[in-house]
C-alpha cells in the first residue's frame, strides 16, 4: 500500500506540474489570440497605425507563447496512458473522442493558420491575414470547448452506460458534451483567460507609461486592458457564484471543504464566512479560526440563515484534502477582489481623465500583472483537488485509475519533469520580460519581418 501511495502521489504531481504549466500558456493563447483579433479588426476598420503597431508588438510574444503551449500540450495528450491507463481503459471511449475532436476541430485550425498569422503579414493580403487571425482565435476557443467538455464530464458524468466489463460506454453524445457542469466551467474558464491576459497587458502598458514617454501605443494597451478588467471581473463573480451554486448540488463535499465547514451550525444560525483557519484533516476541525457569522449563508444560500452539508456528513474516505481547497479558494477570490478594485479605479480615473497620468495606478497595474493567471491557477486547484479522491466523480477513484508503472520510473520522471520545467520556465520568463521591457515603438516590426523576402516566390 505504501508503494502504491507514493507512485500515486508522484503520478498526481506529474499531472499537476504538466497541466499547471500548460494551462497558463494555453489560457494566454486563448486570451491573446482574441485580443489580437480585436486589434486587427480595429485596424482594418479605423485604419489607425497604432492598432497595427500594438498588434505586431504582442504578436512576437504570442508566437513564443503558442510554440511553448503546443509543445507542453503534447505530453498531456499522452498523460492519460502513461500514468492513468486504468482510467483510459475505463473511460477512454468517452474522453478519447472529446480529445480527438479537440485536435480535429481546434488544434489544426490554430496550428494551420498560425504560420500565416505570425509570419504572413507581408505575404498575404490584409483580409486574408485577418481571416487567419480569426481562425486561430476561433480555434483556441473551440479547443477550450472540447477539453472542458472532457474535464466537466469527469466532474459530472452524464449520457453514459456501463458495459459488461465495467467500462463506461457512450450512449448520448449531446448529454456527454453538454453535461451538467459544462456551461459553468466553460464560461468561467473563458472569462478567466480574458482576465489573465488583460491584467498582463495592463501591466505592460502601465510599465511603458512609467518607463518611457507617453505614447499612444502604451495608452491603447492600458485602456483596452482596463476596459476588459472593469467589465469582465464583475461578470466573472456572477458566473463564479452560479458555478458554486451548481457545485453545491453536485459536489457538496467540495463546497464544504472550500468553506472549511466540519460540522453544520445549528438550525437558523447560518454559515459563517471563515476569513482565516488552518483546517486539520486528522482532528477534523479548524485551528485559529477567524470568521464573520452568517455572511457565508449570504453567498451560499442567498439568505442569512441557510446552511450547507458539512464535512462530517460524508464518509471520511470521500472528502478532499481540505487545507489546499480552503486556501486556494481564498487566494482566487482575494485576487478577484483585487482585480475588481483595479477595474473600478480605472473607471474612476478615466472619468476624471487622469488615467494616463496617475503614476500610482500604473504601479498598481504592474504589480497586479500576474493576478489574473494566478487566480485562474488557484481556481483550478480548487476544482481539481476538490474533486478528489475521484477521477470520474463518484464512480472511479483516483487510486483505481493508475497505470502499472513502477514507482521508481514514475518518481524519476516526475522529478525530471519538475526540474526541466523549472529551467524552461526561467528561460521563458526571462525572454518574455526582455521582450516586454522594450516598449512598443512607432512602426513596430512583427516577428521575422524579413521572412517575406526570404521565402516564397518573389
Amino acid at each position, binding site marked *: 500500500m505504501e508503494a502504491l501511495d507514493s507512485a500515486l502521489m508522484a503520478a498526481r504531481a506529474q499531472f499537476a506540474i504538466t497541466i499547471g504549466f500548460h494551462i497558463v500558456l494555453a489560457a494566454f493563447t486563448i486570451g491573446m489570440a482574441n485580443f489580437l483579433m480585436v486589434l486587427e479588426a480595429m485596424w482594418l476598420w479605423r485604419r489607425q497605425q497604432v492598432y497595427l503597431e500594438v498588434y505586431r508588438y504582442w504578436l512576437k510574444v504570442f508566437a513564443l507563447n503558442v510554440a511553448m503551449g503546443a509543445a507542453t500540450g503534447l505530453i498531456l495528450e499522452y498523460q492519460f496512458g502513461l500514468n492513468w491507463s486504468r482510467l483510459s481503459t475505463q473511460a477512454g471511449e468517452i474522453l478519447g473522442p472529446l480529445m480527438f475532436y479537440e485536435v480535429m476541430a481546434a488544434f*489544426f485550425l490554430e496550428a494551420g493558420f498560425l504560420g500565416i498569422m505570425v509570419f504572413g503579414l507581408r505575404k498575404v493580403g490584409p483580409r486574408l491575414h485577418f481571416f487567419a487571425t480569426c481562425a486561430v482565435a476561433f480555434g483556441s476557443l473551440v479547443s477550450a470547448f472540447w477539453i472542458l467538455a472532457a474535464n466537466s464530464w469527469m466532474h459530472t458524468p452524464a449520457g453514459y452506460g456501463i458495459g459488461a466489463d465495467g467500462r463506461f460506454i457512450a450512449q448520448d453524445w449531446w448529454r456527454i458534451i453538454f453535461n451538467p457542469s459544462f456551461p459553468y466551467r466553460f464560461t468561467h474558464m473563458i472569462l478567466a483567460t480574458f482576465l489573465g491576459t488583460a491584467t498582463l497587458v495592463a501591466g505592460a502598458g502601465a510599465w511603458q507609461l512609467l518607463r518611457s514617454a507617453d505614447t499612444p501605443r502604451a495608452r491603447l494597451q492600458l485602456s483596452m486592458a482596463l476596459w476588459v478588467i472593469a467589465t469582465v471581473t464583475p461578470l466573472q463573480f456572477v458566473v463564479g457564484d452560479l458555478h458554486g451554486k451548481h457545485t453545491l448540488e453536485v459536489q457538496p463535499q467540495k463546497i464544504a471543504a472550500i468553506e472549511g465547514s466540519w460540522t453544520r451550525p445549528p438550525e437558523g444560525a447560518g454559515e459563517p464566512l471563515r476569513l482565516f483557519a488552518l483546517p486539520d484533516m486528522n482532528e477534523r476541525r479548524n485551528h485559529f479560526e477567524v470568521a464573520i457569522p452568517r455572511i457565508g449563508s449570504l453567498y451560499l444560500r442567498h439568505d442569512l440563515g441557510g446552511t450547507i452539508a458539512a464535512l462530517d456528513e460524508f464518509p471520511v474516505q470521500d472528502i478532499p484534502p481540505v487545507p489546499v481547497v480552503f486556501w486556494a479558494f481564498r487566494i482566487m477570490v482575494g485576487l478577484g477582489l483585487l482585480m475588481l478594485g483595479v477595474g473600478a479605479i480605472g473607471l474612476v480615473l478615466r472619468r476624471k481623465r487622469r488615467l494616463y497620468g496617475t503614476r500610482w495606478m500604473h504601479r498598481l497595474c504592474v504589480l497586479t500583472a500576474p493576478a489574473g493567471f494566478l487566480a485562474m491557477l488557484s481556481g483550478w486547484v480548487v476544482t481539481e483537488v476538490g474533486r478528489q479522491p475521484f477521477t470520474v466523480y463518484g464512480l472511479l477513484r483516483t487510486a483505481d485509475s493508475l497505470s502499472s508503472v513502477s514507482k521508481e520510473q514514475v518518481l524519476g520522471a516526475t522529478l525530471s519533469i519538475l526540474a526541466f520545467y523549472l529551467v524552461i520556465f526561467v528561460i521563458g520568463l526571462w525572454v518574455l520580460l526582455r521582450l516586454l521591457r522594450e516598449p512598443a515603438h512607432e512602426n513596430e516590426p512583427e516577428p521575422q519581418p524579413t521572412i517575406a523576402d526570404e521565402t516564397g516566390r*518573389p
Partner: protein
Amino acid sequence: MPSDDWIVLLSAAALAFSVLSYVLLDGTDLGVGMLLGGTRDATQRRAMALSILPVWDANETWLVLGGGGLLALFPMAYAILLPAVYLPFILMFLALIVRAMALTFRDHAGSDRLKRAIDALHSFASLLVGGCQGVVLGALVQGVDQQDGQYNGMGWEWLNAFALYCGLVLVVGYFWLGNCWLYWRTEGELHCRSRRQARVLALFTLTLLALLVAWTARLDPRYAERLTQPWLISPAVILASALLAGHYAGFRSRRHYLPLFCALGVFVLGFALMAATLFPLLVPPHLTLQAAASGPVSQRFMLVGFAILMPITLFYNTYGFRVFSGKMRPIVR
C-alpha cells in the same frame, strides 16, 4: 451503414493515416533539426531554421491527433502500450519542448555564438525525439506483455538491441528526409551538400530497412510467415527499387521536390509493410484491432468527424505550406 467489422478497419485506417502523416511531416522537420547542429555557416543555418519555422507547429499537431485517436479508437491499446514505453515517451516529450523552444527562441539570441549553441541543442533534441520514436515502434513490434488489459512488465523491455536498432533506422531515415527537404528548399552550397548527403543516405537507409525486415521476420513465426508471402514482399521490393530509382533520377530533374517525395514514398512503404506484418494485431503478441477497439457508437462518432474535417484540414494545411513555399533566400542581420 457499414458493419461493425468495417468500422474497426476504418478506424484503424484513420489512426494509421494520422501516425503516418506525423512521421512524414514532422520527420522531415526533425531531420532538418538534426542537420542544424553540424552546420557552421550562419546564413545556411538561418535558411534551414526559417524553412521549417512556419510549418513545424502544424506538423507536430499530427502527433496530438495520433494520441487522441489511439485513446478514442483503441483505448485498450493506448492503456497497454504507453506504460510499456514510459521513459522513451517522457524523454521524447521533453525533447520536443526543447526543439520548440530552440526553434522559436533562436531569433531572440543576440550573438551568433549563442545561436550556434541553441542550434546544437535543437539538433540534440531532434536526435533524441527520432531515436525515442524508433525505440517505441521497435518495442511495439516486439510485443508488450499484458494481463487483464493492463501492461504487465518491468518498464525496461524497450531497452534491447532490436528496439535500439529501430531507433537508429528512424534517425538515419529522418536525416535523409531532412537533406531531401533542404535540397528542395535551398540554393547554392547548402543545396549541393544536401544532394550529396541525400544520395548516400538513400542507400544507407534502404540497406538498414532491408536488415530490419529480415530481423523482424526472426522475432515471431507469424511475422516470418507474413513477410515471406510473395504477394507482400515482391510488390514491396519492386516499389522500393522504383522509388530509389526515382529518387536518384529526381536529382537530375528540374523538379527539386522529386527526391523528397520518393523518400517519403519509401517511408510510406515501410509503414505499410509494418502494418501488414502486424495485422490484425495492434499490440503484439495478442491484442488485436477488434479486441482493442472502443464501442461502435464511439468509433462511428469519430469517423464521421474525421471524414468531414480531414479534407478541410488537409486543404488549409496545404495552403499554409504554399504561402511559405519556394527557395529560401536567407538574410543574416
